[in-house]
């Protein structure tokens, strides 16, 4: 199939890529842009390892065509820390022992960001519900939930809410 020029705005930078239409956003990020923080985990919208934010909403890059998100704002894990400062969610994941093998971590952190953007003070139950689409096989989720609760606290207090 014919390649097309696709403009992607990723982490605030614009890229013009020559892509075939069946290219997924996951492939474009990893193979074309070298943004390997977004992971392939299942290819069936179940594990959440490929979660990125498109216009602030969590989506699964393995099952979204790159061409269909041209000109939208895409945020990957590489774009979350600003000016060398970790985002409060990243910091909380580190501090609370929420990271083990780390393969689910980028997706987990971005899902958490979408949650806290929509609901800055979630209950524990709301955190658990929101993260149900991000599988983790290492942690038992206990410290992940703690980290999100702690990040919420930090962000509400610090006013560093939002991007």
């Amino acid at each position, binding site marked *: 199939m014919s390649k097309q020029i696709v403009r992607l705005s990723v982490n605030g930078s614009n890229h013009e890529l020559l892509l075939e239409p069946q290219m997924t956003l996951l492939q474009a990020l990893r193979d074309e842009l070298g943004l390997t923080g977004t992971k392939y985990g299942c290819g069936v919208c179940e594990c959440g390892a490929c979660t990125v934010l498109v216009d602030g909403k969590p989506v699964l890059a393995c099952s979204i065509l790159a*061409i*269909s998100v041209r000109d939208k704002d895409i945020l990957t894990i590489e774009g979350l820390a600003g000016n060398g400062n970790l985002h409060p969610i990243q910091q909380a994941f580190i501090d609370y022992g929420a990271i083990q093998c780390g393969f689910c971590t980028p997706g987990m952190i971005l899902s958490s960001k979408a949650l806290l953007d929509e609901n800055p003070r979630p209950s524990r139950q709301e955190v658990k519900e929101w993260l149900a689409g991000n599988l983790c096989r290492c942690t038992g989720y206990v410290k992940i939930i703690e980290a999100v609760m702690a990040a919420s606290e930090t962000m509400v207090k610090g006013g560093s809410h939002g991007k």
Partner: protein
Amino acid sequence: MPRVLQPFEYLEPRSAAEATRILADYGTRAKAMAGGVDLLPRIRQRKICPEVIVSIQNIPGLDSIKEERGQLRIGALVTLHTAELDRLIKERYTALHEAVHHLASVQVKTMATLVGNLCVATPASDMAAALFVLGASLVVVSPDKERAIPIEQFFLKPGQTALQPGELVTEIVVPAPAPDSGSAFLKLVRTAADIAKVNAAVCLTVDGDACKEARIALGSVAPTTIRAPRAEAAIKGQKLTGDTIQAAARAAEAESRPITDVRSNADYRREMSGLLVGRAIKIAFQRARGQHE
């Protein structure tokens, strides 16, 4: 199993008319796509290999939920996440809200649309069961006409809908719930984020202790979502007591035609059809009466 998708052409029509013309031209070689959460994984797994994907994402006017003349109209681009947050659906179309809410993955809810979910025609669709009892119909357009398909006539068999080549679903229309009515949705799953082993939806209109109208639907226990008319008959015009509810449950069991697959077995599904119907009747009844009071 490949990790990459089979090649295809990708088109993004700007109007429903244009979309239907493309769909009519390509016939079975084309697939319409909204969220893609079902379509793209199946293309990757080589279960289907469309030559053309027709994305409807840029067709204006399909992304809203509105109430018009007492009817709820849900556009083909309304995502499950949007529907979940919708106050009107939450307050008045309870079974639908519950069906959407209990779908666990936020990412899937963000990407997937209600209409897209129906067009997949999985017998396990939670939304279909809820919309069955709420009496929904689908607005379908084609290059030369528009028609409404009652949702009960929409599903033919697993993976197959009543859509003809060139037809596109643009809206779901749900009539306003009757006064003194209430609805409920229940399902059984393996883990929280799972497709239903069995689901059941019930919508009742009550008069005091009696059931005036009843609509009962079951999912994942037949080739398509089904109504359970004998279960409905068991309570319609009856006082809702332990006995009548039990009779409805038993009728629902008899009406289910489940299979054994990786999620559950036929015996369990059959028994649970009745159980869930009984439980959902009780909840819907409470809600209907609550509204009355």
